[in-house]
């Protein structure tokens, strides 16, 4: 099931700086807790992908794409 709507995805894609907004969004959806939010922010984007893949929020191919193409791919995956 999609984590975000197409309209939400569009909004995120338009942002210049996305990390904290995406993390806040995932926290609001209870996909991340406060501690994980902090940990990922400190660790970097790839830690977010690792976490989402571990939680089965991303399939292997989606995670690989997100690692290769960054937020553009991740946001699309979360909206699909």
């Amino acid at each position: 099931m999609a984590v975000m709507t197409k309209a939400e995805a569009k909004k995120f894609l338009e942002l210049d700086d996305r990390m904290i907004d995406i993390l806040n969004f995932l926290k609001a959806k209870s996909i991340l807790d406060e501690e994980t939010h902090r940990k990922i922010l400190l660790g970097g984007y790839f830690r977010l992908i690792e976490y989402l893949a571990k939680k089965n929020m991303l399939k292997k191919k989606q995670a690989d794409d997100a690692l290769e193409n960054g937020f553009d791919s991740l946001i699309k995956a979360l909206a699909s």
Partner: protein
Amino acid sequence: MYGWAGKRLRVNLSTGEILTEPLSYEYRRKWIGGRGFNSDVIYNEVPPGLDPFDPEARVCFGVGPVSGSAAPSTGRVTITCKSPLTGGFGDSNMGGHWGAELKYAGWDQIIIQGRAKNPVYLWIDDDNVELRDASHLWGKFPREADQMIKEELGDEDIHIVLIGPAGENMVRFACTFNDVWRAAGRTGTGGVIGSKNLKGIACRGSGTVKVADPRALLECSDRLRQAFKGDIMKEGLYEHGSLCLINVANRDGWFPWKNFQGGAHPNADNMSGETHSTTVLKHREGCYACPICCGRFTKIHDGKYAGEEFGGPEYEHAVPTGPRLGIIDDANDIWHNARLTNDYGLDGIETGGAIGAAMEWYEKGLITAKDTGGLELTWGNEEVVDKLIQMIGRREGFGDILADGADRAADKLGLPDEAHYYSITTRGMTLPGDDPRGLGFGYGLSFAVGTRGGCDHLRSLCCLELSGALYPGLNTKLLGDERANRPVTTVGKPYMVYYEENQKTTTDCLNVCCFTTHWSYAVTTPDQIEYLNAVTGLDFTEEEFQEVGERIFNLERSYWNRLMSGAREDTVPERFLKEPMPQGVEYQTNVGAVFPLNNLLKKYYEYRDWDPATGFPSEKKLNVLKLDYVAKDLAPLRSKYLSEPEKKKKKYYH
């Protein structure tokens, strides 16, 4: 105990008392070392209102748990004080070998306080620590004093920290050296050391670093050294030192021409690393255990400065007293000026900043030759620059005024507010040779919020935008957006600065060179934790390690907040916000750029969890970082910062 020596030295120069203090397990775990130890001492022992030159002020020298080990480039040392230039938090670190030697002598940190009656130097020979007369060394250049101390102590292999005449004369931007040429350039640590009548610290250590798991350390270190083979930044730094950046800076328009009036010049190649290597490079030198070896040694062969020799210069050392002052045609002038700032013990960046500001005041008619004692401060006037550097170092005439930094000089001269526009400072400190309109919006943001003032490139070291394009995929992996590697874009920059500041802070706690970590990320945070744990035998996790970085950064920020420096002061010189970058060369990539700071700050505060109105860290953030005592200190100051009397933006403190 592994890694750390487990103790620090406290020297009171007023009483001559020399104390050994143990560093507890909890303390070491909370602050790790180097920058962390020092920042904690400055926050707790140097009240915000204290004059940095007061005998009660402290100056600290700190190394980390892996210092002196086989891990790459672990010879650095951090020096921290209340900066006499800015009046705020100040630190600077330097390479060389002294940091490793201090560890071999069995010390993690030195705290100096008080003021000696007569000039002295400290001699640390393992556990034997004594103060020795330095009257005969006073007034000597570091290269002279270094030799004299070695002869006196009968050991050519000792390593010595020294200040030059500028430090003795309490120039507010005097720097500190070790191994003669390796400088802790910024924030005026040399002036504080000089104010204590301390010429230097000679060190000999016969011990070693106790390593918990030597095999794991060697395997990790060996793997990391291999990672540098063929690395493009390593090659550039080895071949041409940090001067390898000159032609890049010129192409991308961040080469500071005439006090940042421009960002490129057709003759920049005169002083490029490539030109330096084929004309005046005598040999290369590396710091302790360094796989890169970026250090230069220069010998001038012709012209009026023929025969001069010195260690350096770095990009940031050559640019401020060269092109920033309109000097570009004869590179020997630039090498000579760098040699002079070394000999006098001056921060080259601030020296160029102060002279550059004065040249622009002169150009704009804000001062005349009457104010300067007859010096014609025209752009490119090498004769005057040569004189003025020495006058600053000796605090003579107009040099004495500039020795307090550009902002204080403007006030001493009674100049109108307009003069500060040309000072090119943030929080009283001039910016290094990196124009934010070219390199880049991440750097610019980091200058605005840096915890040691207008700072330099090394506070956050946004290499993800400087060299990220050379490592495809790196920005995507760390920040989630490859476009962040373009310097002149706002994309991904708030996160980049937050991320790099934390990384840089932990790197400074380990006292590892950031060239071996941030430039290429050949050594990443997990690698650092791997060798940290191999050395200490502890179990630092990535989260714990990075949290230490965040803790220290917020502690330093809070030091400024206690001085009533916050959101209002988070800015860069107005020139970068208002003046579109002019064209200097045909191939320049950033013509017309201005720096959109305000678009970035709000988001950056969100990452940091700093209150947007005050720029103070939130109470919650401080508590999470185990800085509850800091939260208590800041509590009454939050509303004070917003009150009417505090509303005028401050240029510098105390």
